[in-house]
């Protein structure tokens, strides 16, 4: 069972929900896929036991073999290669590679008629793994200045252990990094807040989940601020509301210090377990359907 915690709008409480749910359950593997801003470790404080560089493959041209025919530039859909044609006078051309534009499709290597292009590893971030008690923890951290988080997210997800209940903390938004985090999940918890911003971004996230055909439910955080339009939207769209967490200065203060809610407010342990049982029951139904 893979449960991903996502939200259109940032700062609605994804990490709070993911961390507390994970701590309330047993046999958990936790993956923080918000590789641009990984925060779960601030709460879980896992003992990191392994570190591995995350790399993507980018082209490197052997100019001894290259005849500057321009085929690599032609096949590259991302404009990551520029070729200056051979100057007959000096018998030299020039190749420029823009690694940050490369998606690592391997086309230039595959299609170079001179076999002059090979792929080399370029580090884009790091993957760290460890344990917090019996919980297994993995997260990715994108290097500063790198733009492409989906390859790193996919590499974090290679650690998925199907024997465990896997909880994934996703990045905010609705574009590629979110899709990369969601793919292959069995259920998605969408966290929102009852304001026009929360609702607007919830609707966008719901459209994404419907396109991906993933079952999902909504957690309404700070449920007593704003208005009731998130509730009426969920009702109209038959989206289950999994949990409501009222605004509470004590919760905000715990969060600010990096303390999971359930460590101080034990009544939430039962609430998170109930939510998980409810998710399991919804999921069984959606499999039958």
């Amino acid at each position, binding site marked *: 069972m893979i449960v991903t915690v996502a939200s*259109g*709008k*940032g*700062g*609605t409480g994804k*990490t709070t929900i993911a961390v507390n749910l994970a701590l309330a359950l047993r046999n958990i593997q936790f993956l923080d896929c*918000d590789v*641009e*801003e990984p*925060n779960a470790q*601030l*709460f879980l404080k896992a003992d990191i036991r392994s570190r591995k560089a995350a790399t993507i493959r980018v082209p490197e041209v052997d100019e001894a073999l290259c005849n500057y025919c321009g085929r690599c530039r032609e*096949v590259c*859909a*991302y404009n990551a290669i520029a070729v200056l044609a051979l100057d007959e006078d000096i018998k030299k051309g020039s190749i420029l590679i823009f690694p940050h534009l490369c*998606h*690592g*499709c*391997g*086309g230039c290597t*595959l*299609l170079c008629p001179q076999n002059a292009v090979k792929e080399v590893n370029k580090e884009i971030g790091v993957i760290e793994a460890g344990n917090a008690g019996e919980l297994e923890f993995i997260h990715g951290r*994108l290097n*500063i*200045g*790198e*733009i*492409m*988080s989906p390859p790193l997210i996919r590499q974090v997800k290679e650690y998925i252990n199907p024997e465990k209940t896997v909880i994934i903390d996703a*990045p*905010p*938004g*609705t*574009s*590629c*990094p*979110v*899709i990369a985090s969601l*793919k292959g999940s069995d259920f998605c918890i969408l966290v929102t807040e009852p*304001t*026009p*911003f929360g609702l*607007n*971004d919830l609707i*966008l996230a719901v*459209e*994404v989940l419907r*396109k*991906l055909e993933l079952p999902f439910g909504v957690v309404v955080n700070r449920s007593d*601020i*704003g*208005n009731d339009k998130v509730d009426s939207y969920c009702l109209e769209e038959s989206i289950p509301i999994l949990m409501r967490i009222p605004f509470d*200065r004590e919760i*905000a*203060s715990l*969060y*600010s*210090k*990096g303390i999971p809610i359930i460590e101080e407010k034990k009544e939430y342990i039962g609430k998170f377990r109930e939510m998980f049982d409810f998710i399991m029951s919804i999921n069984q139904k959606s499999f039958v359907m």
Partner: protein
Amino acid sequence: MKIIVEAGTENRPEQGEFKMKQIVVISGKGGTGKTVLTASFAALSKNKVMVDCDVDAADLHLLLHPTIKVRHEFRSGKTARIDKDLCQGCGECINACRFDAISQDFAVDPVSCEGCTICSYVCPSGAITLEENISGEWFVSHTKYGILVHAKLGIAEENSGKLVMVVRQAAKDIAEKEGLEYVIIDGPPGIGCPVIASLSGSDMAVVVTEPTVSGIHDMQRVVQVAGHFGIPTKVVINKYDINLENSESIKQICEQADIEVVALLPFSRQVSESIVQGIPLVEFSSNGIAGDIALLWERIK
């Protein structure tokens, strides 16, 4: 209105004495108050154009209420299509695809396909063509505060960074043409592709953070990104009174990094109330936090 979007004009020299200032509001962590601040700057400033660069979860329009004047399609990237009549089922495309976008029965998953086009080169029977995606829309709109350039990325579409570049360039062109003083940019959360596209070539980054362990962590990363691209950076601590000790740590971190903390804004229920009302905070109220934001604008403008 005619808008020309050109690539590679990022470092165009200033014309004459005219100096336009591009201010981008970012945060690393989501939900710290970027949009509330941007909308207030929009209401407080004169001679400006606004841009919403959070193209995959845009919210600024909910406070500025734009009337769309010009609508543009955002075309970006391609998706493979396999002609089942021509396909011989050899599997070369499946072997070549690095994105696992082609299933064993030769169906293309449009969400996984990154449009690299390699399948079309390796297919021996010419069964694969690539179709251009319409990945979203972008708009030039009127609001009571001035022009807003904004966008809507298609559902589960890619290339948000490229769309950010398109809307920023459009806003810059408008500012140059109309002789506007400011381009005010509402940035996305994170530190990746759309954030870098929002930052590059801007004149000032205003980083909004909050005194939580996550807020501090994410601020440090996004400040490094701004530094990496050489953008002068100022920090705003929002909800500073949620944890005074952490606010103190932020001030120390900023001092060590030689970054000015330009405002400490208190936690206030007025913020969510103004969002529900759908108006910029500085118009919802003129005292308390709204007054602090007005002072903040005077300090950074």
